[in-house]
């Protein structure tokens, strides 16, 4: 039952983010026809990581993952339902655990589904994009980007308002993105 509640409270945010990322992924294929640019060719982890955290998809995904981390008790306090939630026989730790796990699964799904959609979109537009590469891209986005999800989770634990949490989270994501940008030349 707690899992059902957490899912119900986050599902529209998840579906919206998924749809937005699919639009971003489609746009990158249709309008730039350069989807290959985000393929990770290098086997070197550091270089692969640095290359992964470039590009519109990753930036969008970073913000999205951060948004998936929002919610929780402070938000419930703001909307007035926290008293009811805390009167149920579930510890705060378990509520947090359920929220963290579902958010992590949603983040991973939000990374994998748009990445795996790229080969399909590429085929529709007459191009070719290997499914294996797309899967690898999705996994790297998902695992590497857990950092951004954690930022959202932390922000929602520290700040009550959705706008405050989102604003601070976005600033952190933007800062991380800028600080990890590497010179290609």
């Amino acid at each position, binding site marked *: 039952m707690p899992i059902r509640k957490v899912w119900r409270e986050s599902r529209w945010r998840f579906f919206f983010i998924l749809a937005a990322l699919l639009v971003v992924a489609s746009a990158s294929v249709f309008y730039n026809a350069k989807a290959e640019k985000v393929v990770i060719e290098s086997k070197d982890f550091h270089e692969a990581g640095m290359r992964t955290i470039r590009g519109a998809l990753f930036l969008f995904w970073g913000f999205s993952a951060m948004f998936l981390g929002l919610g929780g008790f402070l938000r419930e306090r703001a*909307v007035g339902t926290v008293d*009811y939630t805390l009167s149920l026989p579930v510890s705060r730790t378990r509520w947090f655990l359920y929220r963290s796990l579902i958010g992590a699964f949603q983040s991973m799904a939000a990374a994998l589904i748009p990445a795996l959609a790229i080969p399909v979109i590429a085929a529709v537009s007459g191009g070719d994009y290997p499914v294996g590469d797309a899967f690898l891209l999705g996994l790297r986005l998902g695992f590497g980007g857990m950092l951004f999800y954690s930022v959202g989770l932390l922000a929602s634990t520290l700040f009550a308002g959705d706008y405050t949490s989102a604003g601070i989270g976005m600033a952190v994501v933007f800062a991380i993105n800028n600080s990890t940008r590497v010179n290609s030349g």
Partner: protein
Amino acid sequence: MKAVVETRDLTKRFGNNYALSGLTMTVPRGHIVGFLGRNGSGKTTTIKILLDVIRRTSGEATILGEPTGSFAIRRRIGFLGEDKRLYSYMTVREIIAFTRAFFPTWRMETETRLLADFELPLSRKVRALSKGMRTKLGLLLNLSRHSELLILDEPSEGLDPVMTEQMLQNLVRQAADGTTIFFSSHQVAEVEQIADHIIAIEKGRVILEGSLDDLRQKFQRINLVFDDPPPPEAFKRAGVDRVIVRGRTISILASSNVDDITALGPILAAKSVDVQSVGLKELFLEKVKGDHANS
């Protein structure tokens, strides 16, 4: 007297303000306990500390014999908050099913009866319910649990008189079934209507505590009329809680020793002496005034 809630020297500070200043009280098992106080007197803060929604600054508090932080006791208690906020995205049917799953003591017959009594629309979203309907739903969710203790924070706030009456009758029925009811209110009339035990607080401290019958027996109003009233200090003795001079009349609120105080009338040349029982409203107002005079 077995207690379901006990606090000792409970304090809660918000910045420089004390919401609770050494609150010591006992909620006896098997009673309907009215938790009376003005707005801002500390009732909601006390309840939130008992439910571990907020943390106390100092002092001790136990609920059903367990420390307030124990989440296991939540299976044994029900709670209806002041604003009756519930999950707006769920339908009435969904939130009933959701809540039912947490409580093994859930009574389907109570759920069915209250659904019929309250005429709740099962397929309507909680966000589309009026405050009165939300209160009914909140009551159903709590009364059906059949918990040992039901805590309600200003349950009649925002309700019309008919709905208030319906709610009070349901609380009485639940208490008859063995549940201890602890409800806060600033409406003396509704407390007096159903409560058999009173705890009144002011500025985060208990100013009145005991069974309603005992309080009614214990406190008496003694009115003495004089041609030339003596100074109030003449009545300073055990049992005198408050002395008020109104023209030629001296009105004394006594908590004990009534016979001795009454006997002062003839000694001090009173023209008449009249002893009256004191209603809860008057008693509460006197205690609040007395607290302000002392502080």
